[in-house]
């Protein structure tokens, strides 16, 4: 009896596995076809580069979020963190103007500070969850509020603007392109490859998966659980700082509304990509597709009058729910019981 049951479950798993891996890719292709049918300009080179550039921010952050979620954590603070880092970066660069001038040195200083801030903010989240033994949800909910209010405070309730002279130097980081691809897309590609390798080909990735699957087993398997979990938040912080570095030159300013809802979009991208929210199974490739799907939906709505652009959130919400429902494999079970 149990043999038969075991056979069935392995079969089920294979089916679900296929959907998990191929699902996001199929969804993205379908969206592209829909986009093309609604408006052939969707597949124009200009739109595609635009789409990729737009998805770079969420995509880069979501790669970091994949590690946090795979190891059984969650980071709600990424959007606020991005805003805070952007704000501090701008303040630092503006004040470095006098000594360093509006040249590359100032921009490098800003970038360097951004990375340090990202690593530090991630480390704080990590240490509070592991050594402080507070749930990640609570810790990052707290830091989310702290970082967000810090930007408002720095900007005195208004907007922090980057000096125009520096903007000129910094501009190419967002608007420039290398070999026909915009710079942010290159950053996205590099982060994705590094993330994929780290997750799938290193002991660190294996440890993240093990901790997310069962922390006790990980502990008894000589894994330094606290250290690895903290590392995932540090990686998340690094990803946020990279996303911020390419985001700042886009508008040249930061305010309380910078990066609002990024945390939810990043988590959505991760989940749509097939990573399991409660940990133990992470897919960087899926996350990248997830980020592309989310951006594509917005892009298609921009292109057509069929559905109001104001319903962008609704469409994204529906996609998230449908994606998770498909991954659960509930539809398969429902079919099986019907027949």
């Amino acid at each position, binding site marked *: *009896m*149990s*043999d038969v049951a*075991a056979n069935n*479950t*392995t079969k089920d*798993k294979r089916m679900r596995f296929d959907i998990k891996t191929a699902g996001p890719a199929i969804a993205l292709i379908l969206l592209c076809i829909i986009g093309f049918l609604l408006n052939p300009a969707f597949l124009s080179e200009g739109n595609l580069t635009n789409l990729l550039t737009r998805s770079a921010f969420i995509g880069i952050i979501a790669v970091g979020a994949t590690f946090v979620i795979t190891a059984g954590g969650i980071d709600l603070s990424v959007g606020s963190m991005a805003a805070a880092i952007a704000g501090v970066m701008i303040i630092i660069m503006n004040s470095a103007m006098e000594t360093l001038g509006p040249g590359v040195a100032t921009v490098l200083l800003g970038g360097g500070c951004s990375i340090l801030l990202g690593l530090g903010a991630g480390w704080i989240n990590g240490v509070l969850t592991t050594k402080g033994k507070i749930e990640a949800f609570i810790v990052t909910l707290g830091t989310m509020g702290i970082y967000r209010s810090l930007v408002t405070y720095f900007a005195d309730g208004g907007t922090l603007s980057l000096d125009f002279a520096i903007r000129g130097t910094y501009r190419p980081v967002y608007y420039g392109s290398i070999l026909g691809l915009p710079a942010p897309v290159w950053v996205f590609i590099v982060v994705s490859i590094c993330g994929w*390798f780290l997750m799938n*080909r*290193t*002991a660190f990735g*294996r*440890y993240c*998966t*093990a901790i997310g*699957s*069962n922390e*006790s*087993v*990980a*502990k*008894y*398997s*000589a*894994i*330094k659980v606290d250290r690895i979990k903290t590392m995932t938040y540090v990686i998340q912080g690094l990803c946020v700082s990279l996303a911020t570095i390419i985001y700042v030159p886009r508008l040249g300013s930061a305010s309380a509304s910078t990066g609002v809802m990024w945390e939810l979009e990043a988590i959505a991208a991760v989940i749509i990509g097939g990573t399991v929210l409660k940990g*133990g*199974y992470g897919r960087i490739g899926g996350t990248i597709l997830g980020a592309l799907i989310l951006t594509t939906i917005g892009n298609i709505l921009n292109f057509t009058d069929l559905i109001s652009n104001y319903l962008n959130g609704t469409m994204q919400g529906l996609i998230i729910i449908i994606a998770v429902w498909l991954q659960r494999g509930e539809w398969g079970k429902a079919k099986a019981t019907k027949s």
Partner: protein
Amino acid sequence: MKRFTSDSIARQMTPRRDGGEVMLDGAIETVSVLKADHISKSFGAVPVLFSVSMDIRPGEVHALIGENGAGKSTLMKILSGFHAPTSGRILFDGVEVVLPPDGEAEKLGIVLIHQELNLAEQMTVEENIFLGRELTSRGILQRDEMREKVRGYLSDIGVDISPSTRISELSIAEKQMVEVAKAISRNARVLIMDEPTAVLTEAETELFFRQVERLKSKGVAIVFVSHKLSEVKQIADRVTILRDGQWIGSQEAKALTPDAMAQMMVGRELSDLYPPMHEADVDAERVLEVRNLCVTGIQDVSFDLRKGEILGFSGLIGSGRTAVFEAICGLAPVVSGQILIDGTETRFDSVAASRDAGLAYLTKDRKAKGLLLKKQMRPNLTLFSLPKFTRRFGLDTAAEDKALERAIRRFDIRTRDPKIVVGDMSGGNQQKLLLAKVMESEPRIVIIDEPTRGIDVGTKQQIYHFIAALAAEGVSVVIISSEMPEIIGISHRVVVMREGQVMGVLSGDEINENEIVRYAAGLKRESRG
């Protein structure tokens, strides 16, 4: 009998308790409230129970004893409806019934109290007792009435707990009493308990027994599993003994000595099961010395382990054996004392550090602490020694595959498909994989906690032979086991612990059940110089 089976078809679907004809049957079945009649059970192709019979009478305490894996849990679950028997009959008040699944049998008055108690930790005693059948009036909870009733149940069994206490604030013994009160509130006629005393201290056990006596005087039938035979002798009216899924007998407890019970439990020819033992080299160097180790719950533990020796750790569950070794391996903090590896004092602050020093601890809880049940064999196998499989930046998956092939051969892991999820493997194969996982780090000292818990005799034998082979190769092995025959069968020396202390170290002819039990029960203690 024949009349019964013809009737039974009509009755199979619904349990009935009344009716004239039942009276006739009742006369045949005498006074049993619940009876298992030639019950067999297989899980898939694996038979677990072979034609087991047991009858439970109102107002009796019936002990169910047997070694681990004898089928006690399965029988209890069948008697309470959690499993359906593959063949055989269950009679309730003399009527053949099919017990409803998933604990629904509680409505008939058959209550199973699991070893891992089933209470909502964050709710109060009162809320737990009435969970799922709260008293309401027009949809509003009648809290006062429920509190009064709960107070009544609790005073019935003589427990002094306030109904408004949260479960999380209670001790394990008190939680167990809440479970008993809950059973009483459901008008339990048969109360089945899985090792109720395993986690209780002696004083708590005494209190618990007094409650059992009260229930008994009310006519409740109590079935309980215990590995503590002296307790069985003390409290039980009758004893049913199982061995390897076979029914060995049901007897009056008065007529049995604990020794006789043990003999009936073990029964089999042990020489087949255990490998021939190599003489321990008494002059071999000491690889591990522990001096006056104190950990939470452990006082002043000292022992040493020689190269190529198999050192058994015996004692009751909760005597602190696991805690000693978890502290040594860096899983828990050491309060005071010395740990010497090869003569040099060491303190490991992480499991990784102890692994790198050649120690490996194999947990007794393979499902919760040992293996990633949703992953395949390969990541499980290499997880403990993953640094070994790292080449420059990435993992060497080819080496991992080779390691898996080797492990499957060396430990005889049998699966239809090497890509099977570990959770779908049998207990025996899981245990072999866990052993393989730990051995992958090539340890010099292996600590195996409950090496054969919940696995079949054939696999047990393989594991014993493997352990003996390891020792012959010069690896030092510590075996922590609650199965007496196992400890006796493979250890060169045996350390007996009780309540966090070492009671004695036995070697040679001293290693026998009698001696171990006397130390474990606190009747004897080695004077230490």
